[in-house]
């Protein structure tokens, strides 16, 4: 025990499960004072769950937490505060119309009463100590993303935290802002604070941290000294060995260009670039995989093609197989694009995809696509009912009947309904985003088979996926996107996991020096 007294946090055999999903399996980890520890891992590797356990949002099923050598029980964020642990979440928790100072003192009773001017002075002192450049009286709605992040960091420092956990702090920052943040974090480390940073960007790990711990699929893989490791070693620890899944994959037949995307650019509401000069081609009779860390621009890319995103510039050229003409989808409304046979089945994080209405039953959801057909003033309910029955039958949707509201179905069945409906309309381009998210093995294979059938029919399939093993076995080509930029297109049959993993975490050389 004596050897560990320097450790700020020591985790021993932490286990956390959500239902049947194991998020953390037997994790042991040590964070020392005066060091920056990176926790590296792919999406779903359990990084955030682990940090939420330390900061009191989740309670572990098993295992022990030691803080400063003593066993600690952290049941709520308040307990974590008492242990001087502060977590900076990816999504800021700030009140927009309040000033920085008001946000920082919110819910924190100071012993000498409420005085916003005095609090502002204290905030200034903290800012000077660590090198923040922040006006405490500035309103949040006037702030840039990086200023908001500073407010969040000062908030935990103001409360006296000396163990800081940052969840993907650089995801929303520009390169200069990132450098600025790193300088601040190094200064904090030098004053003896323990800092944990969750990230999947390898170059940041290498430039910032003292040690790196790697998680993969909820398991602890190992910890290495940053000085003694390399990008290649970390990638291998992160993605692991290839697992064979035995997904059938046929050779593409007579592939022809169906969708040619050229120089697509897109910014979000706060002006951050989401798509950066994206160009690619989707061919008929082929599955094009899109790999990337979540939130790298996959959603915006698919939505641009479906006509739901406004674009800065770029062309989306559609080669119409019926007429042979080339049409620019940018000039068309989402409805016109759909009618050309470009179908999007998007399953976002919250499960009920874009395009299904939870409170409506399966038949009505089918009708969302068919209500325009027919000349009668009355709706035709027969055709959608038949379609609903057919989907339930063919895809084994588990439901009492076709009139059950969709939100009552389990996640997998919702996805089957969504994908089934989109396929039923005989698309020429089928875009499926995370179609197997949250599905069990059998349902996943059913979806893979459906996509393969479409491919054999000559449909150009675009598949956005998370699991590299699946992408490598299902797709003919894999395009890798990182921070809105295409970092490479590899052949699905010959590429390795490490190759794709490296591309996923790659950032432009020019970016980090800018």
């Amino acid at each position, binding site marked *: 025990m004596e050897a560990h007294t320097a450790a700020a946090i020591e985790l021993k055999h932490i286990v956390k499960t959500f239902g049947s999903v194991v998020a953390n399996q037997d994790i042991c980890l040590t964070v020392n004072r005066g060091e920056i520890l990176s926790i590296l891992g792919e999406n779903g590797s359990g990084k955030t769950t682990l940090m939420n356990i330390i900061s009191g949002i989740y309670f572990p099923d098993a295992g022990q937490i030691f803080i400063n050598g003593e066993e600690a029980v952290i049941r709520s964020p308040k307990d974590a505060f008492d242990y001087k642990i502060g977590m900076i979440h990816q999504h800021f*928790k700030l009140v927009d119309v309040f000033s920085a100072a008001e946000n920082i003192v919110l*819910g924190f009773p100071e012993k000498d009463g409420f005085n916003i001017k005095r609090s502002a002075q204290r905030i200034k002192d903290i800012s000077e100590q660590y090198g923040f450049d922040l006006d405490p009286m500035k309103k949040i709605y006037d702030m840039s993303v990086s200023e908001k992040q500073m407010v969040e960091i000062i908030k935990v420092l103001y409360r006296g935290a000396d163990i800081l956990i940052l969840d993907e702090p650089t995801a929303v920052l520009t390169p200069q802002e990132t450098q600025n943040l790193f300088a601040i974090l190094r200064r904090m480390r030098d004053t003896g604070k323990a800092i944990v940073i969750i990230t999947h960007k390898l170059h940041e790990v290498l430039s910032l941290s003292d040690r790196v711990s790697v998680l993969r699929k909820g398991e602890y893989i190992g910890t290495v000294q940053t000085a003694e490791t390399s990008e290649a070693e970390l990638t291998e620890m992160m993605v692991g060995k290839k697992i064979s899944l035995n997904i059938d994959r046929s050779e593409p037949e007579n592939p022809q260009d169906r969708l040619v995307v050229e120089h697509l650019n897109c910014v979000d509401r706060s002006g951050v670039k989401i798509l950066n000069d994206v160009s690619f081609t989707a061919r008929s009779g082929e599955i094009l995989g899109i790999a990337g860390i979540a939130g790298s621009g996959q959603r915006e890319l698919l939505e641009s093609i479906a006509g739901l995103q406004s674009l800065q510039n770029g062309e989306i050229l559609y080669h119409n197989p019926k007429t042979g003409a080339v049409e620019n989808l940018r000039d068309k409304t989402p409805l016109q694009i759909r009618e050309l046979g470009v179908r999007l089945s998007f399953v976002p994080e919250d499960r009920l995809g874009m395009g299904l209405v939870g409170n409506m039953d399966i038949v009505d959801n089918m009708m969302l696509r068919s209500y325009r057909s027919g000349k009668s003033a009355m709706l035709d309910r027969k055709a959608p009912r038949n379609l609903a029955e057919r989907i339930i039958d063919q895809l084994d949707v588990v439901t009492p009947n076709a009139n059950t509201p969709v939100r009552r179905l389990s996640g997998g069945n919702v996805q089957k309904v969504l994908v089934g409906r989109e396929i039923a309309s005989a698309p020429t381009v089928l875009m499926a985003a995370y179609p197997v998210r949250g599905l069990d093995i059998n349902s996943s294979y059913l979806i893979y088979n459906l996509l393969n059938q479409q491919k054999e029919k000559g449909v150009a399939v675009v598949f956005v996926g998370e699991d590299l093993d699946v992408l490598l076995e299902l797709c003919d080509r894999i395009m890798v996107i990182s921070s809105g930029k295409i970092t490479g297109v590899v052949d699905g049959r010959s590429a390795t996991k490490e190759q794709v993993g490296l591309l996923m975490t790659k950032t432009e050389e020019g970016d980090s020096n800018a």
Partner: protein
Amino acid sequence: MLVTFIQRAVVQGIPLLLGSTGEIITEKSGNLNLGIPGIMYVGGISGVIGAFLYEQSLASPAAINPFLAVFIPLFCSILGSLLMGLIYAVLTVTLRANQNVTGLALTTFGVGFGNFFGGSLIKLAKSDMPSISLTATSNCFRQTLPFANDLGWFGKIFFSYSFLVYAAIIIALLASYVLNRTRIGLHLRAVGENPATADAAGINVSLYKYAATCVGSVVAGLGGLYYVMDYASGVWSNNGFGDRGWLAIALVIFAVWRPNVSILGSILFGGLFIVHNYIPNLSVSMQEIFKMLPYVVTIIVLVVISMRESRENQPPAHLGVSYFREER
């Protein structure tokens, strides 16, 4: 005549000021309480019931105790509107019912409640008129400062009112101070703006919503009491309160959620409400058009604040939305 006009405008404005101050306090917690007209109505009738029972218990009106004559109706009114506020809070905060529907239901209920007991009291009093007169109680409420008449027009405009008028202004100023200068106010505003953030900061969101709704209802209820006991000289007639409750809600928007602005706004609204009496030779139909003015002004204010897009002048961001922690 101008002095009289200003004086009448203030008197007209006070129920609106109390109503809107109460509604601002409530809305700052994110609760859009459209039950305010009903709550003001209940505040009025509760006071009337208290005063009626007290007057009935007296041998003669001359034997009235001024302190009890004020205290009993005041207490009854506070109790009545507090209960209304509690109903709203239980329904919307604990049971997470739709705020608009709950509020409108409460208004309908409040008006019905008032008219039912108002009608019953009229029967009990065996009055010839369809109203009850509580002159003795009202006289206690309407005590003014003795030196007001000695100061000419100045005294008339500033000192000729009863204690509830000054109380209303003090409450509004106090509400402004608490909202903007204290920790409680900061927390309350945070709850209305972003309850998830407030929750994460360790603020008891439900407690703040309950407290703000109940305090707001009590303040608004006093507006109803003032209307009967002071403005209407203690005469209760069913539906006499009119649509002042809705005007109070319009005033909240006019005052851009600031109780101190509401003080001036209420006098302006009061003036607009009665200005038709002061313009000679108005036909009946023109009078009705003039009565529209406060609403027209509110619509103009809404348009202006929407166009200016100033973030401070917007309603609380989570106004009208029930908070449920697990739905984040």
